[in-house]
């Protein structure tokens, strides 16, 4: 007799729960990187399942660029309060204010997140850092392990990664090192949306179609707001848009969309012809290897 087959979403869920439990069982001080974006919301949902009926046994860490969408911060605080979790915030703004980091000429703050992230990991001696990264997002991520070792400088060495065999993970590390743990490694954008629909997971409203004042920069719709405004030659207009990713408001683009609920978004994602990051992240367009370079330095 064959065992009951389980469909691919159930397998992805079971795999993620297994990974989360392994890292927590083997390491001392886990933390979950939480931005309020859909991948971190799904990751938190899975952590909730992994430890049910107990609470999620680790805090959340938000590396705050200071360029957030206000509705995402509100969503973050409401969710954290409802689940009774501890939220730590590492602020890029603090680093700019006291001169440890310099604002970039292009105003983009995503690359500036690395230092506050590494400092927070060191200060709190976190040794297992959960992230919502997926291998389908980007070609450097396609080569990263589920449990990925970082040296004492937080660096990723793509040429010397631990082999990962069967479902036996090795999260052990020397003092000062830590591991990044990516339970959603094998999920695609479509899987994440299917799971959100199947589980009825709540997201910040900007993932669904809404009217917003935007302007066109390099073929991307950026929101008009405190951190980004049209320059000369760029003009603002109101469009029906939604966001496929949520990050630094100054470099995260919206897409024109009328998908107002999860089923409509699912249909749209299934039919899309542009990758999530290609459509919405100016910082990944910097160079062919932008993500690879940032990861080596210790980025998410």
């Amino acid at each position, binding site marked *: 007799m064959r065992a009951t087959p389980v469909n691919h979403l159930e397998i992805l869920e079971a795999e993620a729960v297994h990974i989360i439990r392994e890292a927590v069982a083997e390491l001392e001080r886990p933390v979950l990187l939480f931005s309020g974006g859909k991948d971190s919301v799904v990751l938190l949902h899975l952590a909730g399942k992994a430890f049910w*009926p107990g609470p999620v046994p680790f805090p959340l860490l938000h590396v705050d660029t200071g360029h957030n969408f206000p509705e995402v911060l509100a969503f973050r605080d409401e969710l954290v309060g409802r689940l009774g979790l501890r939220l730590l915030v590492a602020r890029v703004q603090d680093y700019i204010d006291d001169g440890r980091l310099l604002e970039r000429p292009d105003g983009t703050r995503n690359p500036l997140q690395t230092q506050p992230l590494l400092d927070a990991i060191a200060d709190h001696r976190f040794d297992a850092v959960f992230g919502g990264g997926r291998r389908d997002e980007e070609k450097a991520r396609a*080569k990263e392990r589920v449990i990925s070792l970082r040296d004492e400088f937080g660096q990723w060495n793509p040429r010397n990664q631990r082999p990962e065999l069967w479902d036996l993970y090795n999260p052990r590390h020397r003092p000062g090192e830590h591991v990044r743990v990516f339970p959603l490694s094998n999920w695609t954008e479509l899987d994440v949306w299917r799971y959100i629909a199947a589980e009825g997971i709540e997201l910040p409203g900007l993932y669904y179609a809404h009217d917003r004042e935007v302007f066109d920069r390099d073929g991307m719709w950026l929101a008009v707001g405190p951190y980004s405004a049209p320059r000369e030659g760029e003009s603002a207009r109101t469009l029906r848009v939604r966001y496929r990713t949520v990050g630094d408001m100054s470099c995260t683009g919206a897409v024109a969309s009328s998908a107002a609920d999860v089923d409509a978004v699912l249909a749209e994602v299934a039919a899309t012809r542009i990758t999530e990051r290609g459509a919405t992240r100016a910082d990944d367009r910097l160079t062919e290897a932008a993500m690879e370079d940032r990861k080596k330095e210790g980025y998410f």
Partner: protein
Amino acid sequence: MSTLTTTPTAPTLLRLATAGSVDDGKSTLVGRLLHDSKSVLADQLAAVERVSRAKGLGHVDLALLTDGLRAEREQGITIDVAYRYFATPTRTFILADCPGHVQYTRNTVTGSSTADVLVLLVDVRTGVLEQTRRHLAVAALLRVPSVVVAVNKVDLVDYAEAPYAAVAAELAGVAAELGIATVHTLPVCALSGDNVVTRSGRTPWYDGPSLLELLEAVPGASEPTDGFRFPVQLTLRPQEAARDPRHVEYRGYAGRVSAGSVRVGDEVVVLPEGVRTRVAGIDLAGRELEAASAGQSVSLRLADPVDAARGELISSVADAPAPVTEVDAMVCWLAERPLAPGARVLLKHGTRTVQARVGELLAGLDLDRMAPVELERLALNDIGRVRIRLAAPILAEDYTVSRRGGSFLLVDPQTQGTLAAGMIRGHTVFGNDFEPAAGWEI
């Protein structure tokens, strides 16, 4: 509450690994598979077109789709296993793309360890190379359930049947030698897409399925279905921290079913202690299940107040594995530093990590001849048979019977790095005069 119900139309998941020798067109085949199954999006394709033009190529080089890192693009090589995702209406695929030339054993062993299917590329003009034999040997050693060989570049032999048929016959011979039950072969031209996603009109003498059709049809994961195995990851005992006051007394054992299935009411045994009890409940985060089967992450409630901790195994009773403190195993050495005689290591089996000492190296394995060979020591990419003594018992199973129950890692207690991947060859302490199912006698 979960609504992830299994319906007949829900896609299933297949994990495949690709391997091949240098210049056999593997990256092109993978690129073609992604492209023709419409898994490549417009901006990715535009980037590849741009780079192809910049390199002065007359065609769009689909191999560029799978080159990930800057060093790889600059040197035109593939450094490490990369993972790709594509889907059809009936199946979603996780593809581990294993480079052929650099550290082929380490990479192919890694990719094969999770694969349901190995897709191997062979150039129709060169036929079975040494490296082809090694890849097939690794697939046999790692017990990959299905092997598909795409015989590539049939355009370069004018789509003629005879050269393909010769290679296919040679492959069948090698597979039989290695004890691989079935090898599916098919003629393809990755560059133009013949028989990759759609069947080609240029090979009328081949009436079988395209590669993608084949991948949609092969059976998925195959852990044994009798013999329930549940390595305990964690004890869930929230007490006052419970999210709901009704659960302050809750005590469950969290884990992933590694083989077989279990139903509420089944008798089980907690190993290595050997305490027997019954399954009182199966929980999937607040949803009560009647049964759970291989691959599912759940928590089990037991009828008696048994103290099952991480590293213990909840098993069906009749066929429960015996605790052993010595194993006879094939190990693939994955670390730069060679195995030192008598090395003290950590051994991770399931959720159990024990101290261990690697004893004598009984023999090395020559992948080219699939025969024992004398080796002084095990170095990076070597495979050999060793005896390992354990400071505490593990619940070992034969790898040929269960990939999950028979696999382990060796970990360096100083660097904490992964040293080796191991496969258990039967039991050596509590008898069970086990002989592997097919030809691995060395």
